[in-house]
């Protein structure tokens, strides 16, 4: 077994460990009670959930994101890069067969994602509030993912980085359920509860709100 194949097995193991760990988290949370809301509806919880995942995520939908538009868009770009990196990992055995334009697009998205990640990492270190809020896990997670995306971008472009890419993929994915990165799972829970709560009360979506 050569180094490349070994690293690919590692990446596969990391992916499986990550998926299993996230599934365990999901199952543990789902085992907990979910209080049924029997209060009479004013609005529509389903509409609220739809809003929470669509218009409610738009940068103009909240005062916080309007105030910090650049920081929010940086975060969005960073997360697009992360999901692209996961996609790139899954299709990595076929990179050689992909059209050049697609490979170039992958490199660009991953490269931008890693730059935005690095900006986030620097902000965590330098910005007063972020530094005060951050725990070691936050710093580690943002730099781990940033380096992983950067190496992904290089690996799409140059095979010499493939081993490093697979090893970093293994570490990142295996770490996913253990630390801060697992908020990727709870994002879905959280926005769903948000949508149900405010949707039921006809607060969101509400055409007249937030004027």
């Amino acid at each position, binding site marked *: 077994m050569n180094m490349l194949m070994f690293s690919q097995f590692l990446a596969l193991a990391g992916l499986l460990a990550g998926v299993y760990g996230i599934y365990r988290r999901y199952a543990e949370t789902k085992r907990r009670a979910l209080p049924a809301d029997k209060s009479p509806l004013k609005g529509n919880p389903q509409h609220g959930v739809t809003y929470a995942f669509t218009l409610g995520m738009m940068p103009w939908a909240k005062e916080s994101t309007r105030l910090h538009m650049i920081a929010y868009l940086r975060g969005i770009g960073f997360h697009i890069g992360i999901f692209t990196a996961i996609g790139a990992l899954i299709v990595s055995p076929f990179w050689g067969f992909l059209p050049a334009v697609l490979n170039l697009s992958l490199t660009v998205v991953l490269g931008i994602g890693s730059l935005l990640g690095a900006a986030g990492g620097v902000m965590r270190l330098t910005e007063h509030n972020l530094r005060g809020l951050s725990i070691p896990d936050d710093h580690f997670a943002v730099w781990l993912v940033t380096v992983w995306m950067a190496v992904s971008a290089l690996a799409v472009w140059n095979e010499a980085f493939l081993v490093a890419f697979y090893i970093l993929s293994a570490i990142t994915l295996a770490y996913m359920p253990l630390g801060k990165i697992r908020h990727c799972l*709870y994002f879905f829970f959280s926005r769903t509860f948000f949508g149900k709560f405010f949707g039921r009360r006809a607060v969101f979506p509400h055409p007249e709100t937030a004027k």
Partner: protein
Amino acid sequence: MTETIELALKTLEAQLNQPLETALEACARCGLCAEACHYYRAEPKVEHIPAYRSEQLRNVYRYEHDFLSRVFPAWTGAKKLDEVTLANLSEMAYSQCTLCRRCTVNCPLGVDTPLMMRAIRAMATATGNAPEILVMLADAAIEKGKDPSFYKDMFLEQIREMEEQLRDITGDPNASIPVEKQGTKILYVPLAGAHTILPPAVVFNAAKEDWTLSIFEAANYGVFLADVNRAKAVAKRIVDEANRLGVKEIVIAECGHAYASYRWDVPNWFAGQFDFKVRSLIEVLAEYIRDGKIKVDPTAIPEGVTYHDSCNLARNGGLIEEPRYVLNKITTDFREMTPNKAEAICCGGGGGLVALAEYTERRLAAGKPKADQIKKTGARVVVAACENCRLQIGDLNEHYNLNVRITALTDLVVRAMRLPKPLPGTEAEHLFEGEGALVEK
């Protein structure tokens, strides 16, 4: 581990359902919630960021529930709960968060920070760390429910006096305030004090409503304590009363937390025994005006009027357009604060804070963003449809020299009804009469 800590952790465990675990897990510590909080706006420091506050509970949760945190606590900030930490958590949850949910609305992930603050409040209540006055008020209400006969005669006597006033104001010799009348459509639940009985009585009589007055008050301090058993015991008085009288609907006085709890929580607490429609008095006013059941003068209030959205009524309750509908029918110069509605800034009086004298200074400081908002409107009259908000804005009025009058919505509606005599003992009365009048009669 001491018994207190054991009890605190047991209380946390008992509350750990899907929404709470999600709130504890989802935060990415991006800090975007900072300016959403009125405490941070008033005094921008890390400790006032909602994410920082919730992180204090997360540290305890992680120590108990997270593998990595148990192995390397320093990596995630995990912390074993001790008496000092519990006391600090309790003080924070009662004095630095009004449970307004503005941070939730502004969080890109929708993290429900107030849910975590409620969890801490529950831990504090269970272990005797909650503010004593809130416990006393909740327990007094529960006792009152056990034996209302103790004060009922006195209450009825006061109501008879109020009835005389009502007839005098309205010029209607048949105007009445029925108490615990059997089989009416509406059971109106006031707050403590004539100011939440007389003005609604004027409106109900004018609308020829089939109504009766509850002998209990709508306020529920068990809600502030995040003590479901106490909150249920307080609410049960009214649920039982409504069942006993066979009413169809419960109408809650202008009160944020009472409306939010009876409209959204009580139906869950008393599933199967609670078939009543719950409305706020605000909704009833809007209906009466819309249906022509009461006549109001659209030019009655020419002064600049602004409306403060109570967090429990608007963001947490969904009552956003109804008060505006009413105000637009009785004022000629209505001015919105910015931001408003679901994005409205908390006045700083919610979550039981106005009852906690030990935090007055902190409460007034945290109310500065609201005071600034009011100032910017240039309005002379501030309408707040929540008793706690009115008390807080009243204090802000003095503290920040706002020079405004703060009034309930119903008082203003009664003014717009152009009765033969003014409604005594309300701020709305002063809009038209006497020393410091804002509007010419």
